């Protein structure tokens, strides 16, 4: 029951660390079951490598159910591989055929340097959130939750934007390595809700500023980010961010360097 009948050739990016050049290396895996997830297939390969006393492939993963955003992988030229609306850990080998050659690379973006093999550093996203991806409310100062009715439609729309898992597929998919979908999803969620209004303008300015500091590229509206987003975050968020940013630039005073003080 465990083993299947698929034999595959894998071409995988190997890179020792950030300061060493990397290269593609070919591997063969055999007896792969169509019920395996893509990451389980890599587990099989790693077990083989360990048996041969070679170093296993380093790749990021954790929850393996498509929600933590830790797994990445650029598979056959697509973030999270073939199929839409899923992360790599939700990709199953039944999406491939016996005899296939699969090319596996890390996210490629200036703002996401490679740590090792397929593992990249996405801490730029955390720094963007730290600049404004929040509502400044200290613990203990909240009113009763139902004192603030929010139209279901607005709440649902905010939820749709909030569903972003911060995996970085949008950046990996983009020819310019733009982080606009990620940033716009957070800006949208908070600007759609009444709680987010007081900091609305400053938030847009500060988050966009940090995005630029991190070295992400500009948005040229190709829509690749939306197409590859495992959570179906809509490009409408980017349109909203552009409006938010424009209005904020025209009406808000000097953008502060660090925002969010109490």
């Amino acid at each position, binding site marked *: *029951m*465990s*083993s299947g009948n698929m034999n595959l050739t894998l071409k995988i990016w190997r890179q020792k*660390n950030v300061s060493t050049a990397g290269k593609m290396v070919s591997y063969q895996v055999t007896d792969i079951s169509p*019920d*395996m*997830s893509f*990451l*389980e297939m890599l*587990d099989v390969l790693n*077990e083989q490598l360990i048996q041969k006393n*070679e*170093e*296993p492939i380093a790749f990021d993963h*954790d*929850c393996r*159910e*498509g*929600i*933590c*955003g*830790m797994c990445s992988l650029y598979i056959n030229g697509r973030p999270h591989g073939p199929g839409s609306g*899923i992360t790599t850990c*939700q990709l*199953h080998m039944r999406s491939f055929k016996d005899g296939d050659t699969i090319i596996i690379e890390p996210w490629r973006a200036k703002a996401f340097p490679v*740590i*090792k093999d397929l593992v990249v*550093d*996405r*801490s730029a*996203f*955390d720094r963007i*959130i*730290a*600049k404004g*991806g*929040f*509502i*400044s*409310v200290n*613990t*203990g*100062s*909240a009113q009763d*939750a*139902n004192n*603030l*009715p929010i*139209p*279901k439609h607005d*709440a*649902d729309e*905010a*939820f749709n934007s*909030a*569903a972003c898992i911060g995996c970085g597929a949008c950046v990996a998919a983009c020819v310019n390595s733009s982080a606009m979908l990620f940033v716009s999803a957070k800006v949208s*969620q*908070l600007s759609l809700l009444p*709680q987010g209004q007081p900091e609305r303008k400053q938030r847009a300015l500060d988050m966009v500023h940090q995005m630029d500091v991190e070295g992400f590229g500009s948005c040229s509206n190709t829509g690749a980010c939306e197409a590859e987003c495992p959570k179906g975050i809509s490009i409408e968020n980017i349109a909203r961010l552009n409006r938010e940013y424009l209005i904020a630039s025209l009406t808000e005073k000097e953008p502060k360097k660090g*925002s969010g003080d109490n």
Partner: protein
Amino acid sequence: MSKLDSKIPDGALEQKWTSYRSTVPLVNPANKRNLEILVVGSGLAGSSVAATLAEMGYKVKVFCFQDSARRAHSIAAQGGINAAKNYQNDGDSVYRLFYDTIKGGDYRSREANVYRLAEVSGNIIDQCVAQGVPLAREYGGLLSNRSFGGTQVQRTFYAAGQTGQQLLLGAYSALQRQVGLGSIQMYTRHEMLELVTIDGVARGIIARNLITGELEKHFGHAVLLCTGGYGNVFFLSTNAMGSNATAAWKANKKGAFFANPCYTQIHPTCIPVSGDHQSKLTLMSESLRNDGRIWVPKKKEDAEAIRAGKKKARDLAEDDRDYYLERRYPAFGNLVPRDVASRAAKERCDAGFGVNATGQAVFLDFQYNMKEKYGRSEAKKLDIANPTDAQLKELGKNVIKEKYGNLFDMYKQITGVDPYEEPMQIYPAVHYTMGGLWVDYNLMTTVPGLYSLGEANFSDHGANRLGASALMQGLADGYFIIPYTIGAYLNTEVSRMSAEKAKADSIDKLKTQHPAFDEALKNTQAHIDKLLSINGTKSVDHFHKKLGKVMWEKCGMARNANGLKEAIEEIRAIREEFWKDLRVTGTANEYNPELEKAGRVADFLELGELMCMDALQRNESCGGHFREEYQTSEGEAQRDDANYSYVAAWENKGNGQFELHKEILEFKAIKVAQRSYK
């Protein structure tokens, strides 16, 4: 003499927290700036406590092994979070949530802690909404609720099937805000490998930078372990791949007692195992039991035909189906607590009625509610007089999709089967661990200055946790309990600091220069070197899978004395083999996931044995701990209150020796009774 002082405040149950909270010593703002707090883990408990303590003015460092605080496994919680708001006007109250939780935990938790949890539950919802967490709402704009197992009210708040994600992102945003303000220093891709104690008091940690492999010393006036549960002892569980017990286990070795390790929650509705390649199991939210009916065939020959692929679920007439939960527990039906539902599934499968190829699965079927409940009501709304079967299904499907769409998609993605057409196949899997580090009412462990929050502690769920209560507890501990209770200890630290001000070699001056840090670092390095120097032939996963198999078969859903004794011997043998024949590739001074796993599995191999020892000493059945020798004639768990109404807290004496300490549980507000959901 017992070393356990639970420090439960005096007074009536309803007044304990209010009066304690108002009298607990405060730390003045100037002193807070001089107090450093280390938070290990960034899930709901870790993120919420770190953000709150930083807001209060403390200097905070946060450590997580993932690449961002937002990845912690709280993110994967699907169904919801309980709170006694009574927004639905269905008779809910603080007392009722308290009562349900104590009863759900099979009378093996502390009254005072659970009452406090119920009391602060409402504040959590207020706080999260204020942060912009988009919880589900009704058309009137107010918050929506649903039911979870073990309750008869609707008190579960949710955000589709992604409640944990939304709550964690709320806490994460509060945390990142403090990072931006410079009040929190964040250490991602760092793993705590040792607790540093000086004269028995927690003073810091040794953490490994997972990218460079460097070992770092960090000083703190208090150390907060928010490191989650130990379900990965079983190898296969719904936990994340990286979830581990190392921080808690190292703490146990340094004097923090480990309580009730045998209390493991086996969640009834998970996607069944498909093969040996399986790396983890995926939960299907308990919320599905609101609308899904659980059944197996009534006749064995039907079950056999289904297993052989000769029949399908749809081929069986209504009369040929055994809705065994509705049959056995008419009052709660499909919404019985998790332990009861899991055991009932195992009972049917063991009896030969299981439905997938392995015989280890039951059906979770939505057809009835899809057509009869939602389809009819939608048809009525649209004035369709005599809806056809197909119409009913189509209309109902849309409602089901709105409620559980992402779960249905997830199921289809993993199994390749469309659950709108075929019933889901589910089987129980390890999901949560009620046991954890023993803590007092302040959430302090038996090591002064060392606290434990969330799933990592043992405090609130007794022998079985109710659905949607993990998120509640993690956030209660972090947002609303520690920020008060930690003052009781830090206040004494302030006095000590001022008394030792003139001392040239005071802890506060030396900090990580203290020899205890060098000693701890040396030991950690030696442990790593030992793992790397075995140069055996078997991978870490080989041993982990072996351990998991023993645990699942002998310390899983049902246990007995013989099996547990065997398990202890088998685990010892695996451990011995591990230290003789393990192969860890790579080196210590680089990013090396195999080395990380090796350290975690080394600890699981010790904790697993303690779990079996704990299960063996508890000669009763309660909640998630089901000893086959102790059951009623109807197959229900048979408690022994006269002899086992205690918390079992294990002191690690070194060299695999443990001493059992007992904290006797007293019930004053609640009448202890045989748990019944019939």
